[in-house]
């Protein structure tokens, strides 16, 4: 019997990470092998990043999101694991950050890369917003995670999801995912764009397309009945978010 190759996924937790289980489940369903570990195991070098092909920073409130979302874990990665991460990226690995994971990546300088800077800051509403949003994929982005996807319908749940960048740099970002209206149009106003994110950006990739951060939660829509209107017959199986995970897994398998 031929043993099928399963990509190895490393899910990195810190105190306050809270979407690690469902993210692990989504990757498992997509055909990956999962390790859920605490960041201290990487900092103390008891575990090697290079044994994995996909690295995941899941959602949550790492270190309480004290000071600002993702700042403290972002600093920890930047100051303690930068070389490992750089090596991981340059050797062809994939990195996915969801919600707080995306915030961690921008604080750690992993995204958008090339010494550019973006921030995920407080929503214009001033509130935590838990709601479903329509998303449009940028067809010209080389982002590995969004290939073959046009539209997504996913929940967001954050209070700091507004992407800001220097005005002259904004258009040079590798934006992979935008908030849009139900009809698919942009610009999207609140609540279609739930945070007031500039250019309606919901997710960005680095220049390689292998490193991706997004505010919405794909792991919360992998089955039909997570859709808020599945009882109205508006949803199909699997949920929209599943493709983000299979894209990553299939990409590694093709290597």
């Amino acid at each position: 019997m031929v043993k099928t190759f399963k990509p190895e996924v490393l899910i990195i937790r810190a105190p306050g990470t809270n979407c690690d289980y469902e993210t692990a489940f989504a990757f498992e369903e997509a055909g990956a092998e999962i390790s859920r570990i605490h960041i201290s195991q990487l900092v103390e070098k008891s575990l090697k990043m290079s044994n994995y092909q996909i690295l995941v920073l899941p959602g949550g409130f790492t270190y309480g999101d004290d000071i600002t979302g993702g700042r403290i874990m972002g600093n920890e990665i930047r100051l303690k694991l930068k070389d490992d991460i750089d090596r991981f990226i340059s050797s062809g690995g994939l990195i996915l950050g969801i919600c707080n994971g995306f915030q961690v990546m921008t604080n750690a300088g992993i995204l958008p890369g090339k010494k550019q800077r973006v921030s995920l800051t407080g929503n214009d509403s001033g509130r935590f917003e838990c709601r479903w949003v329509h998303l449009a994929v940028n067809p010209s982005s080389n982002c590995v995670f969004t290939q073959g996807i046009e539209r997504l319908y996913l929940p967001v749940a954050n209070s700091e999801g507004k992407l800001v960048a220097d005005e002259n740099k904004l258009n040079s970002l590798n934006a992979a995912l935008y908030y849009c209206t139900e009809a698919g149009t942009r610009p999207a106003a609140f609540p279609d764009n739930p945070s007031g994110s500039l250019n309606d950006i919901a997710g960005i990739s680095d220049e390689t397309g292998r490193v991706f951060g997004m505010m919405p939660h794909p792991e919360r829509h992998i089955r039909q009945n997570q859709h808020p209107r599945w009882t109205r017959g508006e949803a199909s199986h699997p949920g929209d978010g599943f493709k983000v995970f299979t894209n990553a897994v299939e990409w590694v398998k093709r290597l």
Partner: protein
Amino acid sequence: MQRVEVSLLPHMPDARGRSLERDIYDLGISSVNRVRVLDVYYFDGNVTPEEVETLCREALTDTLTQEYRIGPGSYDTIDGDSFSYEVTYNAGVEDPVEDSILKTIADLGITSINTVKTATRYELYGNPTQAELKTICSRLLVNPTVQHIVTGELSEPPKAPEYEFELKTVEVLGSNDEMLKRIAGELGFSQDEIKTIQDYYASLGRNPTDAELETLAQTWSEHCGHKTFKARFNFNETVIDGLLASTIMRATKELDKPWCLSVFKDNAGVISFDDEWALAFKVETHNHPSAIEPYGGAATGLGGCVRDILGTGLSARPIASTDVFCLGLPEMPYEDLPEGSLHPRRIFKGVKSGVADYGNRLGIPTVNGAVLFDRRYTANPLVYCGTVGLLPQWAADTGQQKPGDLIVVVGGRTGRDGIHGVTFASTELNYTSTDEAQSSVQIGNPITEKKVIDAILEARDKKLFSRITDCGGGGFSSAIGEMGENTGARVYLDRVPLKYAGLSYTEIWISESQERMLLAVPPECFDELAEICQREGTEATVIGEFSDDKMLKLYYQDNLVCELDMQFLHHGIPRLELEATYIPREQPNPPYEGTLEPARALKEVLSSWNTCSKEWVIRQYDHEVQGGSVLKPLAGRHNDGPMDGAVIQPVPGSKKGIIITNGINPAYGDIDPYWMAASAIEEALRQVIAVGGSLDRVALLDNFSWGSSRRAESLGALVRACQACYDLAIAFETPFISGKDSLNNEYEHEGRLLSIPHTLLISALAVIEDTSTVISADFKKAGNLIYLVGSTLDEMGGSEYFKVLGLSGGKVPRVFVLKALDIMQRLSKATREKMLESCHDLSDGGLGAGIAEMAFAGDLGAHIKLGNVPLEGAVTKDDIILFSQSNSRFLCEVVPEKAAEFEKLLYGTEFGCIGSIEDTGKLKITGTIGEEIMNEPVSNLKRAWQEPLKW
């Protein structure tokens, strides 16, 4: 002390500032035209200017959006047209941000900073008067229970005084009645209890130590001992030997369901879910702390309930939360507020934020809840926090430690938190001497708790402990006292890790510091447990061991400070004897004429505080985390219609689900507590049915929040409510598995005793075999038929409609259990066989509100005829048909092709096809004599429903 101020760059929108501007305007103050909110950090230590710069640039500030300034601030001074206040936590209140900032400082390689303190700076622009500024500070900026305004340069915090051991005993043996009364009063003992204690110590020939008396006080308190519910009642000339045992627990015992795995003995009730998993469910109140510090009170309330779940069996993973608030009226004029009470609006915003911030950070979805309003909750708001946990079947039962097992505390450190209520509050001082630094309310630190959860669940799966419980009310004294009942325990109080020095042995013993769990650990397992805890960033400390002498022995630096017989501690309490009376009050409807025009009445009912949309709250709770959601609190065409219950799939990959619902009807209790309780139970079960569940496996929780626990009429009402709990649980075969009570919610105001309405929250947890049969309450398609199942009676007492009309009295809805059971079973069959497109139970606002909610949730119109509504008894007016809140009624949407099949299923019950769904966008109602009484755009109804809480 270094000070850093971080502000948003001028072009960035200041959401916190804007929100405060609105709150100030809501106070009736229009002289403030702009508010800025800044973050301030204070650092103590020998830190260099370069290090402070590094810290500002790399940790405290986001240079794309913020700027920083290092140096002292101006305090409480007028600078041009700006007024500024800097608000910080009182000494002794744990600043939840301190730990993480210290971590990032360490990561930056800065070693010279010892402590961090944070503050929030408010800059108000405009020309407010001194009186207005005072109002803004006291009503919005500062809660003196936990905060104060910084009025000058922060000084070094004074060093905590060292504690010097001195054994304290209390003179009980030689005390006369007067002295005994004083001791009893200080510790909350009744006369009977202190006499019993005096006799006990007389037989030992010595006086008790302070620690012994405190232990007895905690264990025998109403909070821990549930004395009232265990009392012997003399009720209307009959004797009730233990209220709980002869009503609520008796029903469970008689029903004897094999799927009840652990009931009324652990921190939560446990039922079986499937072959592998079990569910734990608990709802707690945290009323008093939330009244004085809504944010911290609600946060620690939820934190405590989550620890109950973590401390159930051999530990359960929290998977969903439900929260119910009962509050005063948001529009209450400030001048009517009882002294010392916070305004209901402020309490609402505070408890909402407390639950959101704590629950969201823990990653537990808040999937269900309710918010009720009544003037009488102003001084005594109720905050119910409930949590469901998932645990392996093998871990369902309470563990049992062996003598020699270690007593291990895991989690946060112990401070003076919660010792003897509020004695510390200061608005003037910057640092009050730590001697007085104690506060009865804490802010809570969810990340500390998250670390504990992560560590303990891993330790559970590795079977590293033999028993677990949480440290809640009473701290170690109740936790260890309870755990050690069957063995005995020895505790070395000087080994407990402390937040700061200076605590006496008794303070350590009774402190209610948050985020601590207590474990019994076999000695050979401790190292591995400690290793897990260290990796997760939390502490595990051995503070004693279980013995085999059935004695509770406490030591401090080798001195024996407490030696209590477990038998006396747990069974020595004299039984209470209570008088209870109940006189039924039949109330006819009050006369009313010239009623409101139906469309206007409906809009007023929909926009009443109890009925209106709670979307403002719901969206601020993460109700999707963990990915289990199947039916959300809001759904429908635009994801904003109200649903009857929450459904989640707790085990990934399994279609089996759970339904969580709540029933609560305090307005009925004013008329008849029996029917209030019956209605609450029936409502919770009705919602289970409405979302597609069945009564096959439903467990109930009772949560009583009552007025006096000594007045005979108040207790009579309690007895009646408990009797209803027994009757209904037996009739529906839905056992109670756990419960809680909060008594004496009374408040003295201007010489009058104000009591809350007697309030019973019933929470239901149902197992549903296959979530694909779940249905939502939104109309699906024009042309489908609308059925009303169940009869409508003239039961207007306590209705929203009567409240709108300013009427009281009337007949309260009753429950006809056989009919109710029959309807529920048939509808459950109908949903299982997929006959229904939507279903909604009728509750607050009756048929009118129910049909409107289904219509705007589905963005569709409808036409119904009141003449087709099944009635029972004399129901003579259209408005009664439209707004009566009779129980056991459901609105069902059926496609015309399935109508015959559905009618056949219902044959023999009361039901009527009352109309159909239309794509007119209007709700049209034809009255009983055939005339059109309403034809209103559904969008207007929706607006009326959504408008009130668009805060």
